[in-house]
């Protein structure tokens, strides 16, 4: 995966030691998820499952949980997110990062944290409010201008962004209806696991997938097309325009 995760915890009634411990536990959990799901690790349960060397029943229960979420995401996204369409076997990569971060945030919440963000390589799960009040303000990286943000969104719970960025086109269209793929797609909503999957879906499916996500309750999308035009659903709350100078 190659993800760097950042934990941001706002000051609270908890002691520094307690917060450190909670973050350490959350980190450990995410490492464990990586050990289970990483398709880069040849001996991970996910890799064994993909090679048919391990059955779902014998695998860690998290795998079944994640695959069930993938099935739901496929259905909700009209097939634009499809973990089972990849060569090499089932691959929950487009959802598991968000799922893992969301669980890590849950662990912080269980430890008594009331205001925090877990940022897993740009997929962000949020809890409570920042100390400055209001909602979390998340800058969306401009897809082709690395020196600017495309916009700033106000986020309650979760935000995920998928797109080309510097590495060029790397997204596969599972249905084979490759239209003009957007440069970047951002999805906000209550669950980071689904926001992650839907952002992937919109990055692949463009306007059509965007319309599907727009019709989902409590999920919103923001799209930057390859030609630079933008579109956002009603619930997307833009703070301000591009921050370039």
């Amino acid at each position, binding site marked *: 995966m190659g993800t760097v995760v*950042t*934990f941001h915890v706002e000051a609270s009634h908890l002691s520094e030691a307690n917060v450190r411990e909670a*973050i350490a536990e959350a980190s450990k959990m995410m*490492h464990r998820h990586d050990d289970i799901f990483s*398709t880069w690790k040849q001996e991970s349960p996910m890799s064994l499952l993909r090679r048919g060397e391990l059955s779902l029943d014998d695998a860690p229960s998290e795998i079944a949980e994640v695959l069930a979420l993938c099935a739901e995401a496929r259905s909700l996204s009209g097939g634009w997110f499809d973990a089972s369409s990849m060569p090499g076997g089932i691959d929950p990569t487009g959802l598991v990062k968000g799922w893992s971060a969301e669980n890590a945030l849950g662990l912080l919440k269980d430890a008594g944290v009331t205001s925090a963000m877990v940022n897993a390589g*740009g*997929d962000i799960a949020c809890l409570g409010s920042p100390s400055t009040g209001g909602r979390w*303000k998340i800058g969306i990286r401009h897809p082709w201008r690395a020196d600017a943000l495309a916009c700033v969104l106000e986020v309650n719970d979760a935000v995920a962004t998928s797109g080309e960025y*510097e590495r060029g086109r790397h997204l596969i269209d599972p249905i084979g209806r490759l239209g003009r793929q957007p440069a*970047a797609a951002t999805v906000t909503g209550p669950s980071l696991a689904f926001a992650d999957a839907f952002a992937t879906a919109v990055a692949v499916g463009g306007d059509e997938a965007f319309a599907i996500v727009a019709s989902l309750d409590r999920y919103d999308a923001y799209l930057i097309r390859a030609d630079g035009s933008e579109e956002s659903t009603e619930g997307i709350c833009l703070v301000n325009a591009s921050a370039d100078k």
Partner: protein
Amino acid sequence: MTVKRGPFALAAAAAGFVGALGLHASGSVTALTPKLSTPRSGPSTPATTIPSTSKGGSNSTPPTSKGGPTTTTHVPPVKKAKGTSSRSVTGSTYNYSYGQLAVRVTVTGAKITGLSVVGLQTAESYSQQIADQVIPMLRQEVLAAQSVRVNGISGASYTAEAYVSSVQSALNKLHFK
């Protein structure tokens, strides 16, 4: 106990509260963001991990002299400008799939005023080319984000992550709030 409250997104995980961990794993050149849907192939590279806690402590002080009369060497005072002093620290070196880099961060008062990449080593010339282009742009992005007052940034890229991690670790060393 207080954590970062300022506008700067990348320092959001404040001094002492950073759990920056790298879930790095082996992979080929096609190892991109976790949204990757292309088949994986190619040679595997050794897995790298990023330490899960930030390194505490301040910038190292010069060694004291040995032998002869005991003297204490001290860091010469930094000339102040406009009543505020600048401090610089180099963040930890971070690995990313194609190389490693560290970022030196200069803080003046409550603002990040300087960023420079030190110790960049890339595994191949292609990565060096990308790094040559991307890293100057990242520096502008880091400085621009500071003025926008965001809590976080969504859409970070692979190369950016190592950069961000090093900046973060440098800020932690500076106890930047």
